[in-house]
């Protein structure tokens, strides 16, 4: 179907993760978060928000795409409850242990199967493995521009195939003009994500969406280079906390300065 005017077709990639407040443990090499709730990766909420706002402003559709194990549907359901029009899950037992390059090959294949896309949005990274590689690797495979750490969409113009965004770097912001289609990772600076409405949650709970396997995507199991021979709980270094005493704030301040001098950190 030919799209109308400047309407945008946006795929937003989301991931299910354990709640950031979860206590993480490792038992015999297996990572566990106990009975902590599973949530949409918090960074992805900003990407979903950006996608929904763009589609509302200029017409279009938002498709949530999630790569995960069978049943890892919390992120998709949250995106649908926020207002995404449809969703696709990609899951295959052969992807166990896939590294980022392998995962991005699967995502790129899914994006091509969905087809006719103007923009692919990602959160800037996921709070579990924190690599932040998928947006740029997926873009590289698709041969589309990578626009990372975007906080503002100045203009999105699918008719002319152009986009202007504000990216963030350590030293400065960068206003970038780029061709479409493009892959964008969205930062928290974009603005607060909406809460799913009651109606949205109800709709999401009943929504049906396809689950694609590697065979559905027409690709073989991609090779992985990176493996994780060992994972362990972080051992907190032994800290002896010294409470600084003093009758007045002034005395406490002076006492702290003396301690810091003795600790050789000034």
């Amino acid at each position: 179907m030919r799209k109308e005017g400047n309407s945008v077709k946006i795929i937003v990639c989301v991931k299910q993760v354990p709640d950031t407040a979860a206590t993480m443990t490792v038992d015999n090499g297996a990572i566990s978060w106990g009975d902590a709730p599973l949530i949409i990766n918090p960074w992805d909420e900003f990407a979903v928000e950006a996608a929904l706002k763009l589609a509302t402003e200029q017409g279009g559709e938002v498709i949530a795409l999630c790569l995960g194990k069978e049943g890892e549907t919390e992120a998709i359901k949250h995106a649908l409850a926020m207002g995404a029009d449809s969703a696709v899950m990609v899951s295959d037992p052969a992807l166990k242990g896939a590294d980022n390059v392998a995962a991005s090959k699967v995502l790129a294949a899914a994006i091509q199967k969905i087809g006719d896309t103007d923009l692919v949005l990602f959160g800037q990274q996921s709070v579990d493995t924190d690599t932040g590689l998928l947006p740029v690797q997926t873009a590289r495979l698709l041969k589309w521009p990578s626009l990372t750490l975007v906080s503002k969409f100045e203009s999105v113009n699918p008719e002319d195939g152009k986009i202007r965004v504000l990216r963030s770097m350590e030293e400065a912001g960068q206003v970038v003009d780029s061709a479409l289609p493009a892959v964008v990772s969205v930062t928290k600076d974009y603005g607060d994500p909406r809460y799913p409405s009651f109606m949205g949650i109800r709709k999401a709970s009943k929504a049906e969406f396809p689950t694609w396997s590697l065979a559905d995507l027409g690709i073989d199991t991609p090779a992985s280079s990176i493996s994780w021979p060992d994972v362990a709980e972080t051992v907190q270094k032994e800290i002896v906390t010294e409470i600084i005493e003093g009758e007045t704030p002034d005395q406490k301040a002076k006492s702290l300065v003396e301690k810091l001098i003795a600790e050789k950190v000034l």
Partner: protein
Amino acid sequence: MTKKMLAYIDHFHGKAQPSSWEGLGLAAEISKDLGGETVALVLGDSVNELANIAFHYGADQVLLADNPILKDFRPEPLADMIVQAAREYQPDLIIFPTTSRGRTLAGMVAVDLDSGVMVDVIALDWAGGEITATRPIYGGKLLAKLTCSTTPQIITLRTRAFDKPVPDPSRSGSVTTLDVGIDPAGVATSIASHEEKDGGVSLNDASVIVSGGRGVALNPALEPPGDLDEEAAEIWKAEQGFALVQGLADVLGAAVGASRAAVDAKYIEYDHQVGQTGKVVSPDLYFACGVSGAIQHLAGMRSSKVIVAINKDPDAPIFNFARFGLVGDMHTILPPLTEALREYLAG
């Protein structure tokens, strides 16, 4: 066979990110141990001086592409050049700093070179030539050891996790110029303009950080101007609190940080957020003022060498991670603390 270590020098318009030198220092250390060669990769426009500095920080050789097309940070042409350098030079290991640009470029070149990236590495083991990287995952709650089965192995180093080498201005070496065959018409992006940042000390590589939390807005002694509504009054109070944080930071030449709670309450811009969904920092000295120490925040700062906690709640979790704790109101403690430090530093 000689091992070849390639360190990518990340910079903005010729000014290097200090963590680039940490990567080059690590490359030199590995080369020394394994009998290898240390090569710096410098890409940009008018970056000859960076090539010279790279020798001071330990490079034996510099691969240089100096061309206007590489002036601004545009990932695609830069990644193409790194891939070209890697194909010509055949390194065993490529090291990037985990900066915004370093992470992006590392990810892209891994795709082209059919390899993988070990991101945000905090420790590296190369005994017997086998590289094993350690990196925090799940907000630092777990540590994973990673290996890469393909060549080149690619890593990005967490800022300040590895020592910055002491520069030796007498060192020099050979510069190899790379051909730049990029077709300008084939680059899909252009940079329209840059937006300056507020000019304060950058959190990323700060050696001292002073952070404020929700407590910045809780000064009982302050009376906001009467014409403000409740929300505006809270923001006004927070601004006064952050002025105290800034005052201490100024005396120490420190960066200003903030907890997620303070950012979400709109007390300060997101650029200052330290934590799992903000910046991960590891300064020598970290002041947490009015910060409770939620797990979110700890994920971003608990690798700091010395943590000072100032909080009026003696049960705040932040005290469990602090070397020094001051139980009290930050609003009454920060002014005399700032003054005492100013006097000490003035000698």
